[in-house]
């Protein structure tokens, strides 16, 4: 889906800092890819590059074999849906009105919403279980509910790629699981490619298919979830004394800090 080759990204300002250097990775189509790494490793920067929120970079990024920059604004919005870490919550919009904005890339400023648009909106709200509060204001919802509403908007956008920047960072552990489970199910249901920045190692191990680890702006490891959940690998990525234990009942590994 996304292919990156020799990507370097520097910050603005008088003393530009190299935030990403020599990134060459490939995000597989139809997989749930997680970008992990310590704070300041460049996770969000990388995701923003993919979402075209950061502009100047050297090297090439291609989406569907065409340069990232070559896609028009609306064309790109039909292909890639992006959820920032702290989306602006409009104080005056209801849930349904917000989700309906997912159709904007397809209908633009003046196009009439047709039956199929309303069907997509309804379906997106159904899949994310927000139909129950369709007529409430987004601002009046709890954090977990809001996050599901944003996901509904992204689904209504009907783009094959979802970019999620720490979608669970403000949620308690139960809601974290719910949201990621939802994303994983949606991915299978609608055949999406998901790329998410995630913090929690165990959640990554539980839900992600493919993992890209960054350290100091460089890719330091990539592979499958099974390979990721090993003490040695986690220690190199996070530079912290971490180890894993095996849960025989679930045949999974969970991490702990020593």
């Amino acid at each position, binding site marked *: 889906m996304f292919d990156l080759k020799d990507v370097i990204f520097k910050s603005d300002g008088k003393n530009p800092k190299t935030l990403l250097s020599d990134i060459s990775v490939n995000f597989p189509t139809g997989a749930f890819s997680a970008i992990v790494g310590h704070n300041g490793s460049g996770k969000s920067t990388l995701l923003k590059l993919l979402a*075209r929120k950061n502009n100047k970079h050297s090297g090439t990024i291609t989406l569907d074999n065409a340069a990232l920059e070559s896609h028009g604004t609306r064309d790109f919005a039909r292909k890639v849906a992006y959820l920032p870490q702290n*989306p*602006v919550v409009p*104080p*005056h919009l209801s849930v349904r009105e917000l989700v309906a904005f997912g159709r904007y890339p397809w209908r633009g400023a003046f196009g009439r919403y047709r039956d199929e648009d309303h069907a997509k909106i309804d379906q997106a709200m159904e899949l994310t279980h927000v139909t129950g509060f369709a007529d409430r204001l987004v601002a009046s919802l709890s954090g977990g509910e809001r996050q599901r509403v944003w996901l509904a908007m992204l689904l209504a956008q009907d783009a094959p790629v979802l970019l999620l920047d720490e979608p669970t960072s403000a949620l308690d552990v139960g809601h974290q699981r719910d949201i990621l489970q939802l994303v994983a199910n949606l991915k299978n249901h609608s055949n999406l490619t998901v790329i998410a920045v995630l913090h929690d190692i165990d959640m990554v191990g539980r839900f992600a298919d493919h993992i890209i680890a960054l350290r100091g702006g460089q890719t330091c490891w990539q592979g499958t979830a099974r390979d990721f959940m090993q003490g040695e690998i986690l220690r190199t990525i996070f530079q912290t004394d971490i180890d894993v234990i095996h849960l025989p009942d679930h045949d999974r590994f969970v991490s702990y800090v020593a």
Partner: protein
Amino acid sequence: MTNTRSYLPAILLALLGLSSIGILVIDFWPFLQKGLAGQVMFSPDETDFDQILFHYSTLPRLAMAFLCGAGLALAGAAIQTVLRNPLASPTTLGVGAGVEFALTIFLLIAPASMAIFQEAFALAGGMIALGAVYLIASKRGNATLWLILAGMIVNLLLQSGSQIVLLFNEQYLQSVFMWGAGDLAQNGWESTEFVLPRVVIGMIAVLALSRPLDLLALGDDTANSLGAKVTVLRLLILGFAVFITASVISAAGMIGFVGLAVPAALRIAGLTRSRDLMIYSVLTGGFVLLLIDFIVRQFNGLGGDVLPTGAATALFGAPFIILVLRKARIMPGTQSEDQHSDQEIISKLRLSIILTITLVLGIGFSLFVSLDGNGFAVLGWNADNMDILLGRSERTFAAMICGAALAVSGTLIQRVGRNPLASPEITGVSSATALAMIVALAIFGFGQRAELMVIGAAGGIVSLLVLLVLCRKFTHAPHYMLLNGLALTAILGAIVRIVLTRSGTQTSMLMSWLAGTTYFTNMHEVMIVAGVTAVLLVVAIALRRPLELASLGTDQSVSLGLGISGFQFAMMLVAAILAASATLLVGPLSFVGLMAPHLARVAGYRLAGGHLLGAVLIGVNVMMVAEWLARNMIYPAQLPTGIIAALIGTSYFLILAVRKR
């Protein structure tokens, strides 16, 4: 790093001190050469014109500049420390406007025998204005944004008041206006003798209280538990600060921005303890005003055109504030507090119907009913009254169109800027339009109104672009846009004042136009503005979907396929054109562009299309009422509609500010 920082204020002060000595040497030079410096200072040779001029004009002017600068900077430092707000100052918190209003009233109304009470009156005016600002802001936990906003509202309210009074006393207009622009020109030592003891007393008092001031910085609770009587201390210091300000303004007029910029600059340079800050403020403020006044004097030929120093300080100070806002994030990063997250989804159909009915009834009322000396007078529908009715309908229509144009303009600015407190008046668009028009008037004369409109719109658009460029990094922070707009408005206002003091006989006419009279309008122009407004309103409503999308912020809008920067630019352009058209008819000061969209949103018009229509309904109603009041309130004289609308608008925000929380 921190070590080098702490030298910065001292270096700054030394540089300013050296420049000031340089100025003194330049001014004294002709006499130093002849060895007459001592003589000219204390006992000038009464036969030598140069010596008399120097002794009775230049020398007291130097003294006044230093005293006023020192006093205002100290007052600013004290107010900033006491209110724990880095952007508070005598001028931004309404003290200056309060003193000015009180003095204007006193000078025009009070009999000569009451002259000894003048000072008490000015002091009371300043205290009441500051008290009002403080009360409004304290309901909001003294948030910086609200303190500034409250100051702005009180300022505008008092300035409209002063203008109304002045319009009815044209004979004093020129001189009061000159004083209002802050004039340091002296023709004797009286002003210095007046200001010196007062500023010195104020300074000693504030400096004596400066140690407990540091306690205040710890917060009220901590200060209380350490044994300081917080409220008494606070009132005392504020009282002395206002006393200094009132004395300076009484003698020299409005000299803005010294009180804000000097302490702010020193704080950024690394002074944190309040005692140091104040001592440095005294000296730095004095030197700075001496310097600015020196520059101003170079532009003023002998007895020729006069550039008022107060207006010049705004020219120097306001850009500095913009610079400070860019360099240092001295503002607490509060998000917009004005968001109604618990707002219910209510039907606004009934409200729209009520507003429409009010509008129809109101039109009938304002056409047929008027106040004469004895009460309501109702006009019959017959051929004799046709002329009167036609005249009234023209003016009512003009006012309503302005209301609509400003409402649409304000709604667009608030929505696209994602800032519930933005408006053409506050962002400086209206002042820029007015300035462009005034400058154009000087070239084209009053006849060519169509060109004026285009030039005005161009001015408004340029100022809006400047503001957007200044604020592009901080689009989420309403207070940032507000403060930049405030600074921009101050610069433009200063230029307007300078132009006005120089325009001589035209001043009165320009003043009434600035105050927003609908008297000079003609039907042809009103129809043009009506056409422009109608077309742009339809355009805006047609674009309601992207307008709504813009409320999600830049990132999200682009992610959903809206080219936001182009769209924002187009919408701001529309807003500026509308504001300029309305400004041509009703002047720059009306507040309808802030009030109507805000009220519409609070009333429950959530979505862009409804918001636009609701704001238009409200704006039209408000302007209609304002126009009727302006025509009838003090019959047979008439008031400018713009000022009445501003009074309604500011009252609305006062009520809003006091009621919340």
